[in-house]
């Protein structure tokens, strides 16, 4: 019985600690308004992608030829039935934008996961093994970095044919090198630190050293990199789909919708504008979060920010004092 309460207490304590940590992070986020905006926007996007069937007013592929090219609601002929208007086949633009978020986020997540895992594994191998493994991996990375990825992507897409899977493969193939380079560099610098040497002397096996002692140190730079890469991939997927080399109809994708709307650009501006704004906001939100993360994970930057905040607070206080004195007089 006593034991149970102890465990409960421990769990509760841990839970509270965790909550406290989250709260601190939240407060810090609240202070940086741009980072906060980014996180909120990403939250909205995630909700849109997950709950698309629930919140979309129409099916994204249902055609209604009688209601073709309807403008958004605030235009003269707009109706509340199609808030952002309809396209050349009478499909609801708002629903298509909502469903399009699924493709962008799915491709982004998949590519970051595949490229990130592969890159980190290669980087760890190169950095920890050193010697010949290192030089082979690095030469491979150098070779791939020196050649523009899109050119290879064009050939691969032309031969294998475009689909969501090919897009994921192509973008992963082009994107893993950054993770590899960063991981290797970090491993090389961490390896020399006393605690890794201590772990090795204590008899830790290579696997344990890598996963328990080295990898946790790489979490925050890798996370920031992954978020930045995510933004790049959302743009790349949109561009490939726009060129007709990415997601294929009848599936929906923001890039694809911009390409479709291009032909009706002069008559129906909303067809191009709406999905484009969706892409821009998504990428902007991710970039905002990434730059906030870079700020809070860099001790030097944190110090600067702290100093700045203290000055602002002091200035505010002294101003308050002055005004109070003036009021008193």
């Amino acid at each position, binding site marked *: 019985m006593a034991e149970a309460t102890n465990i409960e207490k421990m769990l509760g304590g841990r839970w509270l600690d965790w909550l406290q940590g989250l709260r601190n992070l939240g407060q810090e986020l609240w202070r940086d308004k741009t980072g906060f905006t980014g996180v909120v926007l990403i939250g909205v996007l995630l909700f849109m992608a997950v709950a698309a069937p629930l919140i979309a007013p129409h099916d994204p592929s249902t055609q209604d030829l009688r209601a073709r090219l309807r403008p958004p609601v605030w235009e003269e002929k707009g109706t509340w039935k199609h808030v952002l208007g309809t396209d050349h086949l009478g499909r609801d633009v708002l629903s298509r934008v909502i469903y399009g978020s699924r493709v962008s986020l799915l491709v982004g997540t998949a590519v970051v996961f595949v490229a990130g895992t592969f890159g980190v594994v290669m980087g760890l191998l190169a950095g920890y093994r050193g010697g010949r493994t290192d030089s082979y991996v690095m030469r491979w990375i150098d070779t791939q970095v020196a*050649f523009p990825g899109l050119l290879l992507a064009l050939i691969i897409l032309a031969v294998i044919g475009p689909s969501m899977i090919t897009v994921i493969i192509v973008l992963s193939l082009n994107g893993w090198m950054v993770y590899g380079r960063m991981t290797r560099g970090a491993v090389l610098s961490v390896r020399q630190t006393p605690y890794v040497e201590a772990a090795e002397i204590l008899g830790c096996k290579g696997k344990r050293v890598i996963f328990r002692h080295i990898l946790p140190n790489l979490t925050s730079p890798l996370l920031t990199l992954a978020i930045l890469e995510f933004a790049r991939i959302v743009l790349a997927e949109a561009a490939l789909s726009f060129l*007709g080399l990415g997601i294929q109809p009848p599936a929906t994708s923001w890039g694809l919708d911009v390409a479709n709307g291009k032909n009706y650009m002069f008559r129906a501006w909303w067809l191009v504008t709406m999905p484009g704004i969706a892409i821009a906001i998504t990428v902007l939100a991710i970039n905002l979060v990434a730059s906030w993360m870079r700020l809070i994970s860099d001790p030097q930057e944190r110090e600067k920010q702290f100093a700045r905040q203290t000055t602002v607070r002091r200035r505010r206080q002294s101003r308050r004092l002055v005004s109070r004195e003036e009021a008193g007089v």
Partner: protein
Amino acid sequence: MGRYLLKRMWHGVIVIFGVTLLVFVVTRLVGDPVKVMLPLEATLEQRAAFEKQLGLDRSIPLQFLDFVGDVAHLDFGDSLWQHRPAMEIVFEKLPLTIQLTIVGIGLAFFLSIPLGIIAALRPGGIVDRTTVFFSLIGFSIPQFWLGLLLIVIFAVKFHWLPTSGIGTPTHIILPAITMGLPALARLVMMVRSAMIDELNQQYVKTGYAKGIPFWRVVGVHAMRNAALPVVTLLGWEVIRAVAGYSVVVETVFAWPGIGLTAIQAIEREDLILLQSIVFTVGIMVVLINILMDMVYTIIDPRLKLQ
């Protein structure tokens, strides 16, 4: 210097060889070039004749040697779409892409330096924060969409500029802006952060203390030290523009350069023309890389010793 250059060139050869290997594996082993290039209703005899014409009836190692020879001569045969040497088409289209790149990226480069320096003079100030904010927006906007918006605004609504194609000098304005804006955003951020780092160094204070004028300390002393990362990024922007953005921008503006031709080659399933484009641009990129290395040693003579 000579030895260094030789080493870089050798590396370039390795890169091209690696790409040759990869393209060979993708086109011959993973995919079927005949299936891609011939229409579905082609008869077996037609297929056999076509395979023979391309040398696909031979063994894989021989085919690979053939392919390496093609790459070495930079000659892949006649375009299936236009029925003339593919390289002829490539050299016809290439100058237009280079022109677009020079105007677009050049514009971005010359604007980025003053903007970045002004932002860096007071980090965290109002000018700095505005610059950073607009840069973030600049590289968050999808390029193809930016191009379409510019067409709608400046060509359709105000009739100031032509919508697409080539001809008069005004035709290049919109595609060049589209090409340059994301590059401008990234370059400004780079100039800014490099300059902030340099302006915090001791030698800057020494310079002021000695009475060197402000513009000289910032524009000459700090700028020269901040140049290395900026030039690196500039090189990358040129490479990305030639080998990536050109495809998107030229498609949007119907600018008949190499990028638009690549998309047309894919649409018309002309693998020969596509390969010619990929390898030509690839070799150009490798050459730009070598050029960048040479520029580094001029900016920072210490690199020569290594």
